[in-house]
């Protein structure tokens, strides 16, 4: 089974760019393929090296995916794996009946994970694939046959997604998440059957450029498994954090624990592990080389500080944000921690959970600041058991509006409620350049066009960014608007501050305007209208 999952990982890696390229939104940070791949890698990394029972192994895989899930597609994928594992229970090995049960279970779990299931997405692909697999098993109860049928049905289902979802039809693409599912299970099929992989969907030399992106940062990515008895995971986490460990994951049970940690020196991490059990599956990577690929695109974020628990607020605030100015604004408004969400900006549930750990004495309010991080945030909140409350900010400027309404004291639910109201009273305008040709939300755009999104919906294209900004504002400014805040991105053109201020003074003389250097990647201008 490890082989099958590893082949699927390889197959998804090869097809990732093809999947990224069909995101409906032509914005530079919406990478479904990458998010699914990072989630799958987290799942694979959690598979015990020596698990004898398939059910046990899959439970560990599902747990790894749960914490490693990035983006909404990753979260749904992690729920599919959970459904898969639960359907198998403690089965020693997977037989044909078990396989069909598991596939159906995966589909059911995925549907249950989203409040309003949308057809024409990865949900549909999983469901139709699983139904075809069940039918196939009745004809011929052989695993290879059932898997092959699943894959063919899933691929056909992917082709039909534009018929079910108008925005896909408008954009002239199939669903990226659905394609990801078809690709993953195609990889599993080849892995189980031992057949060679075909040529990828779109063979691009860029496909290897993002290898190892989950190992961002400095120092050494250190992973190992500890086998022992009565292993105290909390104590281990505490020790690793005390050693300066970052991106920490300590997953497993009292007998087997999987550790993933970024350390300036891997030595103390290994020693901490040896102290509680026998080490196996040790893997140490130097992250410096991988980091350099990403350094240009990422602004510095303050490292997690070892906060004095006495100084912790009763209600903590954790935000996902990038850009020195934006991060500073969150800090200034009282955020206990700001994390950057990794290479794609889509923080995993595990990262969010870790950031929330010890960020507040009683409660932690979590601002995902991205509609594609929302589900991972909710997953993290569920795992934290009521201590973490997600304030559903879908954009970073909505998150800042919410942070203004934050206070570290009082009743957490009431503070969250107030922050939610602040979000509702704020319109977000995001201005960037289209990364490819597309038709989305009824707007036709070409690669390189200036585009403006209002509350996440593409409303306008223009030849240049300034015009896109004004067209976006036209949609966002209402009769009751009084304040526009502009955050200049890292790649905003020179002298943008004064120019934008003059533009707005001219177009909206009655509005108060505040311009700040946000330093965010991808979006030269982010604006909030209140």
């Amino acid at each position, binding site marked *: 089974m490890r082989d099958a999952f590893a082949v699927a990982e390889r197959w998804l890696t090869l097809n990732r760019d093809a999947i990224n390229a069909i995101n409906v939104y032509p914005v530079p940070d919406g990478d479904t393929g990458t998010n699914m791949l990072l989630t799958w890698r987290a799942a694979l990394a959690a598979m015990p090296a020596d698990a004898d029972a398939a059910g046990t192994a899959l439970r560990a895989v599902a747990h790894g995916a749960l914490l490693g899930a990035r983006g909404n597609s990753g979260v749904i994928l992690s729920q599919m794996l959970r459904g898969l594992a639960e359907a198998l229970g403690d089965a020693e090995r997977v037989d044909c009946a078990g396989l069909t049960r598991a596939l159906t279970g995966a589909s059911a779990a995925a549907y249950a994970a989203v409040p309003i299931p949308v057809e024409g997405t990865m949900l549909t692909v999983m469901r139709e694939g699983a139904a075809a697999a069940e039918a196939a098993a009745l004809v011929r109860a052989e695993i290879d046959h059932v898997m092959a049928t699943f894959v063919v049905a899933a691929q056909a289902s992917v082709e039909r997604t534009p018929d079910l979802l108008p925005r896909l039809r408008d954009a002239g693409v199939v669903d990226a998440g659905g394609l990801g599912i078809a690709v993953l299970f195609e990889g599993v099929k080849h892995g189980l059957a031992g057949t060679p992989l075909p040529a990828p969907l779109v063979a691009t030399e860029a496909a290897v450029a993002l290898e190892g992106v989950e190992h961002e940062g400095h120092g050494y990515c250190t992973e190992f498994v500890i086998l022992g008895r009565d292993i105290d995971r909390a104590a281990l986490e505490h020790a690793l954090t005390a050693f300066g460990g970052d991106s920490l994951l300590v997953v497993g049970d009292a007998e087997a624990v999987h550790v993933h940690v970024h350390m300036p020196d891997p030595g103390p991490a290994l020693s901490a592990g040896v102290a509680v059990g026998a080490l196996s599956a040790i893997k140490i990577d130097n992250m410096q080389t991988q980091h350099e690929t990403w350094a240009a695109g990422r602004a510095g974020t303050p490292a997690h500080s070892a906060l004095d628990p006495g100084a912790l607020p009763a209600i903590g605030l954790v935000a996902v944000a990038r850009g020195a100015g934006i991060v*500073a*604004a969150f800090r*200034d*408004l*009282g955020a206990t921690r700001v994390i950057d969400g990794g290479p794609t900006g889509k923080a995993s549930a595990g990262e969010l959970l870790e950031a929330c750990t010890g960020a507040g004495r009683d409660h932690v309010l979590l601002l995902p600041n991205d509609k594609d991080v929302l589900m991972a945030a909710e997953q993290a909140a569920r795992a934290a058991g009521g201590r973490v409350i997600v304030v559903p900010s879908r954009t970073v400027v909505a998150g*800042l*509006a919410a942070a*203004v*309404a934050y*206070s*570290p004291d*009082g*009743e957490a639910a*009431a503070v969250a*409620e*107030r922050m939610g109201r*602040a979000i509702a*009273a704020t319109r977000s305008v995001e201005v960037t350049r289209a990364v490819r040709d597309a038709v989305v939300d009824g707007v036709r755009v070409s690669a390189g066009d200036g585009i403006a999104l209002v509350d996440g919906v593409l409303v306008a294209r223009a030849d240049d960014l300034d015009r896109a900004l004004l067209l976006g504002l036209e949609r966002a400014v209402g009769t*009751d608007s*009084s*304040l526009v*805040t502009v955050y200049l991105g890292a790649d905003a053109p020179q002298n943008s501050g004064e120019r934008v201020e003059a533009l707005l003074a001219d177009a909206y003389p009655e509005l*108060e305007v*505040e311009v*700040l250097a946000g330093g965010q990647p991808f979006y030269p201008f982010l604006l909030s209208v*209140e």
Partner: protein
Amino acid sequence: MTVRIVTDSTADLPADLVERYGIAVVPLSILFGDEELRDGIDINSEQFFKRLARETTLPTTSQPSPALFRATYERLRVEGATEILSIHVSSKLSGTLQSALQGADGVGDVRFRHVDSGTVSLALGMAVLAAAAVIDEGGGLEAARAAAEDRLTRTHLFFVLDTLEYLRRGGRLSRGSEILGTLLKVKPLLAIENGELIAIGRVRTRQKAIEELLQRVSALRPITHCAAVHATTPDDLKYVVDRLDGIAPDASVLTARITPVLGVHAGPGVLGITVVTAGAPPVPTPPA
């Protein structure tokens, strides 16, 4: 037996009520450089905010001298007062009460009661009026004091400022300054609690600030008395009064323009709401 009431200019009491109840108002001072002006006497709110907009150096304030209290108390004694109830701005915000106590020392043949209102503006003003009403109906010093103190336990005062600049300079903020931030411009929401001025929240726009205050006020219902003060925004005052009429239909709304001494610390654009709740102070509940 004649009871008279003394307060200070931070009570924001309108002139007609001062006159009707024969209340003596001792002024604090505003200092523009070396020029000392008696609050509400040498300079009124209209003149003050006009001048504030022109001045390059910002004014400071000073509590009344014990001598000024002494003179006021002596005048009331001469007018026939045998008992004086002297109610003042929170001792955590100003040394006025200290001056009043010193001023009373040695004023013969008068029984004094001094009250630290623990608040300011019309929250103080309405406590003074509660005492005045008791005296008006023939009540004595202790009954008047009890009425003022009872009302104070049920009084809540909230402010929104247009800018933090004046308050920061005045150094009157006791607690909560850390939530106000410095990078983004915010409108601070303030309240008086236990005699201190504290920051209770922040919002980005004035409109939201006013709504937030009204929401907090609304959560305190049932309300028996309301008051609102402004500095330079009569339209906002009118809006707040209309909304208060809806929130507390049975309570009339007392309004005033904030006195120059408070304007020095709050700045133009300040808007304050005072409410008196019915019965015992309720357990504060967050707005739904």
